[in-house]
């Protein structure tokens, strides 16, 4: 018992030292200035936050939010029926294995693999031309479509795994019971199945939406030079411009926006349950 408490306090100390303190330092840094000799220095200032409210930054932020939302929607729309079919399938564990395998390969290389599919004379255009769906090739690469495909492709397993884990525990006799008691298929889905899979949906959405905002390398590879998202902006401020306090302020601002989003998102769920 004593050993376990000891191990437990080690974890608390770990989280305190390597998560809470660094974050507190970043919050502090966002109120400080930078100079040519020091990365972070006094005096205290609010100017880092004032310079955030420029039309350019607002544009970047809205673009990032929009892309992340669309990505989450497509991931959920694809993964929800997929997980359901997977739970009902006889080859469940095999399929789970095949979901985990691409997940084990570098998402960077998989993003790069999409180039061969999406490029002007790539597989997608060739296939569409052969099937006579289009008469001339479409530009897919370096568009929002390419960025969203890349994000959905990379984050899809993150949606499937929590949904699958959740649905696997669902007692399917409940559906039979509801049907026996006269519920329609639609009612059974909306009143029995969907509510019980909510925790899975919630964690899936969290695991997709949050990285979608900040996976800076996917827009860099598939979106071309013009598509700067919020992640690219922070990366630039830290490693290119060397303005750490400004970068810290942008990060804190991003976190704040996401927090507001989470609170708004969680409310309707908690009310119903």
């Amino acid at each position, binding site marked *: 018992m004593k050993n376990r408490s000891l*191990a*437990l306090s080690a*974890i608390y100390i*770990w*989280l305190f030292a*390597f*998560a809470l303190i*660094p*974050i507190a*330092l*970043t919050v502090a*840094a966002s109120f400080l200035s930078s100079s040519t000799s020091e990365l*972070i220095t006094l005096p205290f200032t609010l100017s880092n936050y004032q310079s955030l409210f420029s039309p350019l930054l607002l544009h970047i932020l809205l673009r990032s939010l929009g892309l992340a939302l669309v990505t989450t929607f497509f991931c959920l729309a*694809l993964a929800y029926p*997929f997980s359901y*079919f997977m739970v009902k*399938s006889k080859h469940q564990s095999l*399929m789970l*294995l*095949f979901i*985990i*395998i*691409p*997940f*084990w*390969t*570098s998402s*960077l*290389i*998989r993003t*790069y*693999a*999409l180039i*061969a599919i999406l*490029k002007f004379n790539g*597989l997608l255009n060739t296939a569409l031309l052969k099937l006579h769906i289009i008469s001339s090739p479409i530009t897919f690469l370096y568009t929002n479509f390419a960025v969203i495909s890349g994000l959905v*492709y990379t984050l*899809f397993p993150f949606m499937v795994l*929590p949904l699958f884990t*959740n649905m696997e525990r669902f007692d399917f006799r409940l559906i039979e019971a509801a049907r026996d008691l006269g519920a329609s298929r639609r009612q059974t889905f909306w009143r029995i199945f969907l509510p019980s899979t909510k925790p899975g949906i919630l*964690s899936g959405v*969290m695991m997709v939406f*949050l*990285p979608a905002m*900040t*996976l*800076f*390398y996917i827009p*860099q*590879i598939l979106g071309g030079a013009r598509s700067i998202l919020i*992640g690219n902006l*922070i*990366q630039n401020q*830290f490693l290119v411009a060397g303005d750490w306090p400004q970068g810290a302020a942008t*990060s*804190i601002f*991003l*976190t704040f926006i996401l*927090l507001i989003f*989470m609170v708004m998102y969680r409310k309707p769920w908690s009310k119903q349950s």
Partner: protein
Amino acid sequence: MKQLIKHGYLSFVFVLLYLPILVLIAYSFNDAHFSLSWHGFTINWYHILFQDEDLWSALINSMLLGFGAASIASLFAFIVCVHLFLQSQTKSSNFLHSTLLMMIILPDIVLGISLLVFFNLAHIKLGFTSLFIAHITFCIPFAIIVIQSRISTLNVDTYHSAIDLGASKLRAMTHIILPMLWPAVLSAFLLCFTLSFDDVIISYFVSGPDFNILPLYIFSLVRMGVTPELNALCSITIGLSMLLVLGAHMLSKKETI
């Protein structure tokens, strides 16, 4: 009809998931440096790849880092989850829950720059140590989620009945809790290994020049341009991953029988 929709949909998604990977593997054997059309079979790109020493050291570094970080993170997560499971709500668990929630909400990039600021102020040299600390830290919440979602389905009474029936705490742990939990611990380990092995964002900020890891090495290659060597590298990674996952799968089958 229903079966047809089900199988059709499942195959559709699997084709979408695997097509880019299969195309990539095909191109790694393509005897052309720039062209995307087929010019004949070659293993030349693999020869070149095997002579790349930077790549080998990056791969080994990534493996070590992933293994170490995943082991420690899943061990931490196991201890925390079992502790919370056996004990009723306490003040310390509130602290834990809010910290973990915050870490999950916090974007990777923000954790990355926070750790960069921290390492800078604490004078910790960027390299293996900083990467190791960072990877354990960002893996912990995910490991806890995986184990917690499993442990919440268990009934705590099973453990207490074992104690009532005369089992020692250790025995109840090894004979009741562990057999029920180990698949979750293993999947937490696998998830953490994957996250660590695949992480670009946090590593990008906290790595140093002396310790290169595979994702950052690949990132630098991708930014310099697409090469057939990179296709070959990806094919090897997929091959290795398949072996590892299949191994883990067989292991889990053996244990449950």
